[in-house]
């Protein structure tokens, strides 16, 4: 870990009420391969953090460990100040102590996936109301009304009765973002949301994400979109071989790369 990160962590202990997500010393192995080697992260409310890193750096795994789609081997995750309680499983590995708590927290951390993962047997509208009505137990009429507003916002209202397989990738991803918004989440997790899209469809998804950032949403975005990282996010975090290599203010980071690894990484992108 670079001096840069350690200094940043020491200098600004976040006031508890402003913390949206706090990760401390997260570790994760797949077999013998250590993917995360003690990652820490602080996201305050309203932060838009772009998480960069080359393939295999652990950035997606980190995101998936935050909402426990993967179970971290050790470390702490707090969402909105609430610690996700873990216990020792029978096989000696860590597991969630209370799955109900995890489900409640997941509902506050809406995730947008690389491959959209809309429920293919439901229309777009049904995709948007499924979790709010069944998980959050909100009245269906209210959810439908909100869903229509969200679909107008992401520009696919006229496709509301389509099934996902009948739509383009860009439309599916915008529907997936609307599905995430329908949860009124505290934090939105984006796992390479534009990586599976044809180049000409990337723009429409980025525009929606930019507008979310502008209205003050808290977002963690694993991405390869350097433009988004530099111009839209409030913080950039660069992972290298399972560790936090550097964290900082985007313009500063891109203008003066704090580490040789990050310098190399952006150089490769500009080639």
């Amino acid at each position: 870990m670079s001096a840069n990160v350690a200094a940043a962590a020491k200098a600004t202990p976040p006031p508890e009420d402003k913390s949206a997500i706090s990760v401390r010393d997260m570790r994760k192995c797949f077999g013998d391969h250590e993917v995360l080697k003690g990652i820490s992260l602080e996201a305050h409310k309203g932060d838009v953090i772009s998480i960069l890193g080359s393939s295999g750096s652990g950035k997606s795994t980190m995101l998936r460990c935050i909402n426990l789609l993967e179970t971290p081997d050790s470390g702490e995750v707090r969402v909105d100040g609430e610690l996700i309680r873990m216990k020792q499983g029978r096989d000696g590995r860590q597991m969630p102590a209370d799955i109900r708590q995890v489900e409640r927290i997941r509902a506050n951390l809406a995730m947008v996936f690389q491959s959209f993962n809309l429920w293919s047997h439901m229309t777009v509208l049904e995709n948007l109301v499924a979790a709010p009505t069944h998980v959050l137990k909100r009245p269906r009429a209210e959810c439908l009304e909100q869903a229509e507003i969200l679909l107008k916002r992401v520009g696919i209202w006229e496709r509301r009765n389509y099934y996902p397989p009948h739509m383009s990738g860009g439309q599916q991803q915008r529907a997936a973002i609307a599905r995430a918004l329908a949860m009124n989440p505290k934090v939105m997790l984006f796992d390479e949301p534009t990586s599976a899209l044809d180049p000409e469809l990337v723009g429409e998804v980025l525009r929606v994400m930019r507008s979310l950032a502008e209205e003050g949403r808290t977002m963690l975005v694993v991405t390869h979109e350097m433009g988004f990282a530099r111009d839209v996010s409030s913080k950039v975090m660069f992972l290298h071989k399972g560790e936090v290599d550097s964290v900082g203010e985007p313009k500063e980071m891109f203008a003066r790369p704090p580490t040789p690894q990050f310098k190399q990484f952006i150089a490769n992108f500009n080639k």
Partner: protein
Amino acid sequence: MEFLSDLQAQFSTAYELLAAGWGVQLLWGIAWTLAVTVVSMLIGAILGSLVAAAKLSPRGGLKFIGESYTTVFRGEPELLIIYLFYYGGTQVLTGVARSTGSIGSTDILNMPSFLGGVLAVGIISGAYQAEVFRGSFLAIHRGELEAARAYGMSAWLRFRLVIVPQVLRLAVPGLGNVWQLTIKDSALISVTGVAELMLTANKAARSTHHSLLFYTVAGILYLVMTSVSTPIFEKAERYTSRSFTRPK
């Protein structure tokens, strides 16, 4: 000419026999065959989904039970299973009833023939349905299950909202196949004395000595049942996979 008049005579005999009551009996036979098939399919659906879940379980014990079930009931002759349930069931019931004193020591408590039959056919159908359900579950796009978890759905909600509808969609073609097998297996339970189509045709053939006629008629009726069910399953398939076919 002699041949033609002979054929005519054959037809009028056939007509007379069918009109004399055997026709109605055969129709009842169809009704019983369909009843046996439907009930067996339902028993098989319940058993099949439980067995599929066991086979997919990460727990070794459950997996073993599921594997054994499909191995045994797909590997044994259907007739053997039916005899086992019917005659074996009678023996068990009699033994229990005698020991509790509810029947005399020389009385016999028969396994109800319909119950014994549909249990046996249902258990066999369940073994095939389990394979259909297991394959369908494995064909669900993993990302959709993951999204359900990521949106805070409990195991029950994921099952109800994502797994069941998708398994049904993927299972319809395979279930159509099992339905045909089950119609044919239902003929075997004629040995337990359920008056379904096979037993009725048998009775008619033996008592009138017109085997050729009655077995041909029964054969045609089985073919009608299996071919009528094909378009019904095709329609069901179109409906359940509507999200994957292009809209008009």
